[in-house]
């Protein structure tokens, strides 16, 4: 605890060398002190980042042996069971990685597990950001980048899954081609150009390979770097608490504590992925056998992140298909186009647009750095849950044959159940989630007003028993009283202004819609504005806080 250790000479030398050329000492010192708020849910994005790094490293290893060629050869490699079987060079080289390259099997499994974890981490990171409102100004652009990363990651995963040219992977490509062919007018042309002729042709693996190892990873890397730089520049959001405001961030400085923790977390992520890869077999292509367009297996599924598309392809009925009665007749295959193009469009489009829709509804133009507790934005939370339920139902529908077999339910019945659930589920999800949010708000108000139930029972002199309510900690009081009521600037504008002229905006279609949405967004709320916290002891915080917040809220109105 005495004096600070002198920087070693060598380090000083390097430091000086760099600073002489880039003038970094001052910037560097500031950035060493970059603040990261502490919460486990703020580390979900890091899981995705670390999985991506693992994917890059193991991916490079795999390219050293993988041959992206569809040349048909007769296998005579070391894996005995498939000797003498005709297969593509891509599949044969995958077998080579598995059974000739020591550690190759492990690397391939790490690559695949890391891919599953990567997309899963993207999803929960995105859900965290959505439910806490961390996408609001000034972070809308970073949210859009995140949506793009998510979309690209799915395509990247699908292409990677297709490369080994094993039985299920080839079927994935076939389904992709089937969806392409359904596109009106240009479908056949797109398919012919992508596949270099008819399915399967001899080019598709080579082309997907280039997209998978070069183009998409480069885009992903660029977007991830941009995502991270924007985060660094804008600083992380934080949950409400003592001293945490829209203007001040509280947390652990980057150096030394956060850097060590984040570094340790990389190793944890790698350890879990390596552990799965060591003991849990994934995508055993050598057991599936090579792809042929005529073979199929029951229980065929894509990797989990494509499950929602698979599910929507399964449950969408063909009732809406029709034929344009011109000339020989041209089919419009709604049952392929909606699941293949419209539903992903809805999901990604909805994700991308939500920050702007919400901003339009609330008219909130201020920078928000304190994250919402999900219960305090019940409509947003409800919409998010509805989206999750919709996605989840489609995802489950993608495994309806496995569910049918496992739980002995009639296969067609599962389809009907999922058709109903895909519509009813999100509505129910919205209503229930919103109810729960309001219930939690009510409990918060209760806690703020009366303190928490201590569990201690006391007998009054009158003989009556009461449960003692204790005052909440200052932190709890701060968190609970920091709740902001949902509001919208649209509703604050008078319908009729002082001179008796009707507000023209309110009468137009869009204006009407906006007001209706604003009403819907704000109508249900349990306010805490009029609540005096249980004990006076710690009130100075809250008083400071409200007096400080007050004028800001007023500004808001203008």
């Amino acid at each position: 605890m005495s004096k600070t250790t002198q920087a070693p000479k060598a380090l000083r030398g390097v430091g000086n060398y760099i600073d002489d050329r880039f003038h970094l000492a001052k910037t560097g010192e500031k950035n060493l002190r970059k603040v990261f708020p502490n919460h486990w849910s703020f580390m979900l994005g890091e899981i995705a980042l670390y999985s991506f790094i693992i994917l890059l490293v193991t991916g490079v290893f795999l390219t050293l042996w993988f041959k992206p060629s569809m040349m048909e050869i007769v296998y005579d490699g070391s894996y005995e069971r498939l000797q003498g079987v005709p297969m593509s060079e891509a599949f044969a080289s995958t077998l080579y990685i598995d059974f000739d390259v020591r550690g190759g099997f492990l690397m391939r499994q790490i690559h695949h597990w890391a891919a599953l974890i990567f997309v899963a981490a993207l999803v929960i990171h995105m859900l965290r950001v959505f439910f806490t409102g961390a996408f609001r100004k000034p972070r809308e652009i970073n949210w859009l980048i995140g949506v793009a990363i998510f979309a690209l990651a799915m395509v990247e995963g699908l292409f990677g899954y297709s490369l080994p040219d094993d039985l299920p992977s080839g079927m994935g490509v076939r389904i992709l081609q089937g969806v392409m062919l359904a596109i009106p007018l240009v479908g056949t042309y797109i398919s012919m150009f992508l596949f270099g002729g008819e399915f399967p042709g001899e080019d598709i693996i080579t082309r997907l390979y280039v997209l998978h190892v070069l183009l998409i990873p480069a885009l992903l890397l660029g977007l991830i770097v941009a995502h991270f730089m924007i985060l660094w520049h804008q600083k992380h959001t934080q949950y409400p608490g003592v001293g945490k405001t829209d203007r001040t961030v509280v947390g652990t400085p980057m150096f030394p504590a956060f850097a060590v923790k984040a570094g340790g977390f990389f190793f944890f992520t790698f350890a879990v992925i390596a552990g799965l890869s060591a003991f849990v077999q994934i995508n055993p292509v050598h057991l599936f056998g090579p792809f042929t367009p005529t073979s199929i297996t029951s229980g065929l599924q894509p990797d989990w992140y494509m499950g929602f598309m698979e599910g929507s392809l399964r449950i969408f009925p063909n009732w809406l298909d029709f034929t344009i009665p011109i000339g020989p007749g041209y089919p419009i295959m709604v049952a392929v186009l909606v699941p293949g193009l419209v539903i992903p469009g809805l999901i990604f489009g909805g994700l991308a647009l939500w920050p702007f829709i919400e901003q339009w509804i609330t008219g909130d133009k201020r920078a928000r750095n304190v994250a919402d507790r999900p219960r305090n934005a019940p409509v947003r939370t409800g919409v998010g849950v509805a989206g999750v339920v919709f996605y989840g139902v489609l995802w489950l529908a993608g495994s309806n044959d496995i569910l049918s077999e496992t739980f002995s339910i009639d296969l067609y019945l599962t389809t009907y159940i999922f058709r109903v659930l895909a519509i009813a589920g999100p509505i129910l999800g919205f209503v229930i989630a919103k109810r729960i949010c309001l219930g939690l708000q009510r409990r918060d108000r209760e806690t703020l007003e009366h303190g928490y139930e201590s569990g201690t029972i006391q007998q009054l002199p009158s003989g009556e028993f009461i449960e003692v309510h204790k005052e909440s900690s200052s932190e709890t009081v701060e968190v609970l009283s920091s709740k902001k009521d949902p509001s919208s600037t649209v509703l604050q504008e008078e319908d009729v202004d002082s001179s008796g002229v009707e507000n023209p905006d309110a009468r137009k279609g869009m204006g009407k819609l906006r007001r209706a949405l604003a009403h819907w967004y704000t109508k249900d709320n349990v306010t805490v504005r009029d609540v005096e916290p249980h004990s006076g002891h710690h009130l100075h915080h809250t008083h400071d806080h409200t007096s400080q917040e007050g004028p800001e809220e007023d500004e808001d109105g203008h």
Partner: protein
Amino acid sequence: MTENNNNDKNEAGDDKPERVVGTPSSSAEERVVSEQPAENESAHAGPFEPFETHLRSEEQMRRGDKMASAWFIIATLAGIAFIASYFVFPPNSSGEPMIADPQIAQYSNMLLGGTLTLAMFGIGAGMTVWARNVMPHYEVHSPYDELPSNEEEKGSFSEFFMKGADESGFTKRPLMRRTLLASMIPLGIAPVVLLRDLGPLPREKMHHTPWENGRRMYVEGTHRALRAEDLENDPNGMISALPAIDDERYPHGISMNDQAKSVILLIKVPEGDWKEGMNQPVSEDSDETHMNWTYNGIVAYSKICTHVGCPAALYERTTHRILCPCHQSTFDAADAAKVVFGPAHRGLPQLPIGVDDEGYLISTGDFNEPPGPTFWEYQGGSGS
């Protein structure tokens, strides 16, 4: 970047009063742990002052030190074990890898993976212990930067930018501007043109398969042509078949492309099970019925689902349903393979079959409709 940092610095000063909130400064208990470091910190506290500083006790730090080191030692040993396990299963003297045996491959995978896991976990755990038990814990306040520039800065930038634009003449000389933009257009289209050779135009290709009059059929996977009498003993038989082609260039005697569109499902349906649909014509302008295209109770349908192209081969002999295991489109084999459930747009195309002089099953023509996923022009080509 630099400018922004200055901004930070200034705000840090302005923000001082706010930081007082929640800074437990005077509690006696706090002072015991934080007094001494407070002096040190004041020597160089960095850009933002720490608060709630919690130094670990000497005892805790010593324990943490030992614990973290223990983890790092475990990680080192596991790392060495990882490298060692690489050499445990070497190729034999003739260069054949030992791991080609799946059982050995499993041992190798678990040994390498297990040691790697332990090495990674050791480092992660060691670093976490280090951060949690040796490093002092504190939090710092720092301002969120005011992101929008002030009006003056914005105005000044905008003015300067436009001055530059005027200076360049770009705004004032439309001829030059427009010709430059025009010159970009052909170059913008060029990459699209260059991609033209990615593939051929569809034309009529997707309407034709190798099936033609007199073509025999192989049981898929063999090179044995089927005779009608081979199905004599299967009142409820089914088999996957391909056209009998033996092209030396392909290991299976037939290209993947041709396999993908010509594979068929031969199904033997008992006499009384046929349904009404079999008596309809195979296509609008044809006087052949679906029934005419069968032979001796044997019917041939394309095996490729008309939905998105999986092989629809799951045949239930009791219900005569052909089900696609991918998306569960269901076709009725006894009723001209019409769609009875699921997302498919149209029934499975049928192949006309008969026998030749030697009793071998043959096709007597091509499918009545293009096989495979339904596409825009499927009714447009020369068809059957």
